[in-house]
């Protein structure tokens, strides 16, 4: 069924089609419409699930952890301060190896108070052991929730996943979305049946104390699982594509990169805009491309290194800033790129914080700037884009 819907409704339909059995959530702008829609599905009987309203996001994740430990497929959604309040229990979900899937509507962290698009909330959770998918369209949001369950619940992975949609730009913007048939989704995604779960009459403690002589082995197992998730994403997405006819580009979507001299690396909704900008540059004969970081965890290390071996310059756009270090996407892309033989010129562009528009013009200026930087052999640096008071004009 083809429909027009917001990113938030696409998330709700994704969770419904995946037949989430327990949904625990706390409202927060701009996420609330996701769980409102799911509550409606549960109330009308369209979705057979237990909906647990809780008093905080920490409790929402704790409820999902308990339900998942009991063998239920669980879902929640949150945003910014809600996500960061979950931080402790996000670590529990991954350490306990529970394949929970959650939508995070990526929103700025306060202060200054802001409800608009920004990746700081998601980036701040990069070390929690969750898979992270940054989506560029509402269709991708819906599809990725279904894909994420299949990837995460597979025996070799058993880790949770965060499906990230940009605040308002996706969450509240309507786009055409194909809502696949339930039977088709059921054939792709079987019911969740973990090897180990809490059972009535058989009391056990999960995630119990281990001494220093045994802790590292458990962490190593989780590390292997995240490595396995890399290949599993590619396999599951191929299977998804065969059934549903859509492919979202694996971990690193390469758009017109095969012969590109300069590439822009970006994540989230801005990547869709950047494709139009790349097309405009190509029409003028400028060999540029876009590499979209779809997965930030696991990080597409090999893909970035292969890309870096073929280009002269890489511009990395971060919609967040890690104080004292730089954009997190830049520092990680740089580490992967420079692990190879060839070292292209790289530059970090900080843009779009707190929902500021990243216009096609700005993206065009970034693609021109990285070429200038390469000609000059400029040292890698960080440029704040479109900040009032700084000398450069970006508007």
């Amino acid at each position, binding site marked *: 069924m083809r429909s027009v819907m917001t990113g938030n409704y696409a998330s709700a339909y994704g969770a419904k089609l995946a037949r989430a059995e327990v949904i625990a959530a706390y409202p927060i702008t701009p996420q609330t419409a996701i769980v409102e829609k799911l509550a409606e599905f549960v109330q009308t009987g369209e979705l057979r699930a237990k909906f647990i309203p809780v008093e905080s996001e920490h409790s929402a994740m704790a409820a999902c952890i308990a339900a998942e430990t009991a063998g239920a497929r669980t879902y929640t959604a949150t945003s910014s301060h809600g996500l960061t309040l979950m931080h402790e229990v996000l670590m529990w979900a991954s350490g306990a190896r529970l394949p929970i899937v959650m939508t995070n509507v990526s929103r700025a962290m306060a202060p200054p108070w802001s409800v608009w698009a920004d990746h700081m909330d998601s980036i701040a959770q990069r070390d929690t052991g969750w898979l992270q998918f940054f989506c560029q369209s509402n269709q991708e949001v819906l599809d990725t929730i279904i894909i994420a369950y299949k990837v995460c619940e597979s025996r070799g992975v058993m880790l949770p996943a965060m499906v990230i949609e940009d605040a308002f730009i996706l969450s509240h913007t309507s786009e055409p979305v194909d809502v696949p048939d339930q039977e088709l989704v059921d054939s792709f995604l079987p019911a969740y049946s973990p090897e180990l779960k809490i059972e009535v009459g058989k*009391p056990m403690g999960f995630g119990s104390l281990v001494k220093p002589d045994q802790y590292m082995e458990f962490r190593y197992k989780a590390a292997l699982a995240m490595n396995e998730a890399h290949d599993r994403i590619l396999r599951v997405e191929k299977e998804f594509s065969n059934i549903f006819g859509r492919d979202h580009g694996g971990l690193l979507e390469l758009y017109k990169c095969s012969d590109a001299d300069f590439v822009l690396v970006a994540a989230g909704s801005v990547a869709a805009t950047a494709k139009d900008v790349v097309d405009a540059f190509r029409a003028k004969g400028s060999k540029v491309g876009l590499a979209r970081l779809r997965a930030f965890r696991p990080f597409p290390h090999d893909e970035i290194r292969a890309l870096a071996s073929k280009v002269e310059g890489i511009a990395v756009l971060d919609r967040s800033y890690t104080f004292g270090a730089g954009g997190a996407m830049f520092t990680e892309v740089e580490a992967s790129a420079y692990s190879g033989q060839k070292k292209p010129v790289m530059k970090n562009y900080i843009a779009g914080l707190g929902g500021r528009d990243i216009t096609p013009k700005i993206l065009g200026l970034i693609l021109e700037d990285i070429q200038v930087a390469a000609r000059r052999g400029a040292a890698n640096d960080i440029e704040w884009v479109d900040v009032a008071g700084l000398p450069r004009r970006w508007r």
Partner: protein
Amino acid sequence: MTKSYEELPLTPISDTPSTMNMTGLWRVIKPVVDKSKCKKCTICWKFCPDAAIELVDGIPVVDFKYCKGCGICAHECPAKCIVMVKEGGG
């Protein structure tokens, strides 16, 4: 004995309750109750963080399987009938 990561479950599973953990083994000082001075106020019983005090006719009896010797009971006792003494005599 450290197990290989391959032999381990995904997350550590415990099939015994924490009451199997004999925390009394940690103790270096122990509470000694002078029953003659006890006023049966039950404050020690309420404050014991390990629930290692039972009341017999209102008078505390310490369960040394779990008492860690933290001394909170002695500190809180208004009648000063509990004193902490070194384990192993002396």
